[in-house]
């Protein structure tokens, strides 16, 4: 066993090293599945926009299969530095459901928040409001107190899904110990 390297904050200047062009577009025109926009805003404990956060997502494809490699048509991963209003957007496909030893998993994206002020990144998940039956059976959502589950569910809003991240305080997003 080797001892783990500790985490440190991404700091305010991560764009120097981590800004990739179009890293928030996971799809091409011919990527199979329902193409969606995921929009959201990162807010602090006072409800003030966090202008220097970075969001990464990781998800299955429309058939519920995880890829990850560069040779795949759909890697399933993206990155977006937020704008001055804490806003982020991803262009992707709605992920499919899948099952494993832990049960039947509702369609979801995995999401990480990095920011100045966070010494260790925060893990969460994005579920979809139009998947109520699958959400009700999801083994991870089932671990979340019922009155906080709504913080993990993206709402349909115009041409996109909306998922805001409240880092602290009223309506605080549920984060996971992964």
């Amino acid at each position, binding site marked *: *066993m*080797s*001892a*783990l*390297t*500790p*985490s*440190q*904050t*991404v*700091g*305010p200047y*991560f*764009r*120097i*090293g*981590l800004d*990739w062009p179009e890293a928030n577009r996971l799809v091409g025109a011919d990527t199979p599945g329902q193409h969606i926009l995921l929009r959201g805003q990162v807010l*602090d*404990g*006072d409800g003030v926009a*966090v202008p*220097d956060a970075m969001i*990464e997502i*990781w998800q299955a494809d429309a058939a519920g299969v*995880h890829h*990850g*490699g*560069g040779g795949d048509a759909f*890697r399933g*991963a993206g990155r977006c530095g937020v704008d001055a209003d804490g806003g982020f957007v991803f262009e992707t496909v709605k992920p499919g459901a*899948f099952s*494993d*030893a*832990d049960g039947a*998993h509702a369609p*979801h994206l*995995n999401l*990480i928040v990095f*920011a*100045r*002020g*966070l*010494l*260790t*990144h*925060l*893990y969460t998940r994005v579920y979809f409001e139009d998947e109520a039956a699958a959400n009700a059976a999801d*083994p*991870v959502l089932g*671990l979340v107190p019922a009155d*906080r589950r709504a913080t993990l569910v993206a709402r349909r809003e115009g041409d996109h899904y909306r998922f805001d991240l409240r*880092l*602290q305080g009223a309506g*605080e997003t*549920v*984060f*996971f*110990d*992964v």
Partner: protein
Amino acid sequence: MRHFAVVPAGCYPPNDTPAYRSSEKRAPREAAIRIPHTVSERCGPHYGAEALRPHAADLTTQVAGGVAQGQRIIVHGRVSDEHGRPEANALVEVWQANAAGRYRHDGDRHDAPLDPYFTGAGQVVTDADGRYEFVTIEPGAYPWGNHHNAWRPRHIHFSLFGQAWAARLVTQMYFPGDPLLPLDPIYMGIADGAARERLVSAFDLERTVPDHALAYRFDIVLRGRLETPWEERS
């Protein structure tokens, strides 16, 4: 099922670290909820050579017409998981301040000169044994507003993906003997002193290049899948 060992207490710093003032309004108040490692946590994106930018492994020669100012250094090491298995063909992203302690970023208002020949961004891919190496200049310390006369110790930021979403890591490499380390709430946010010291690189005389560059070694250990997953009982 849990497919990774629990991160030991005191290794990944808690976000609720009041001495680090930026955490005050950003650290969640609720405890994180432990979840099983489903397929989506125990696999993850992989980036290799296809993600590299030109000249990314030598930060001193990225800008045509000149070379970066400062003490030239080689930074190298091995990336492995906690079971000693190499992280092969894996992208390592780095970024840093210049020799004067200034970042090439609009948000950095520090009254220190920018270097037109230094971007501060690099990328490398590990080899089959998990080893990486890049050439850069030693970054300067810089003041920040955390508390009176606060200075960040010299550091280089690192970002790594590992084999799984659960292994994602962003961290900072420090330099041996830096007197600012014990004064820095970001570094000191790691409660375990032995864990903290794993972020301090080692001067590596063997890898220095005479008449050219000093060298530092920084090994990185990421979370790795257990051979036998375990069922958590509460």
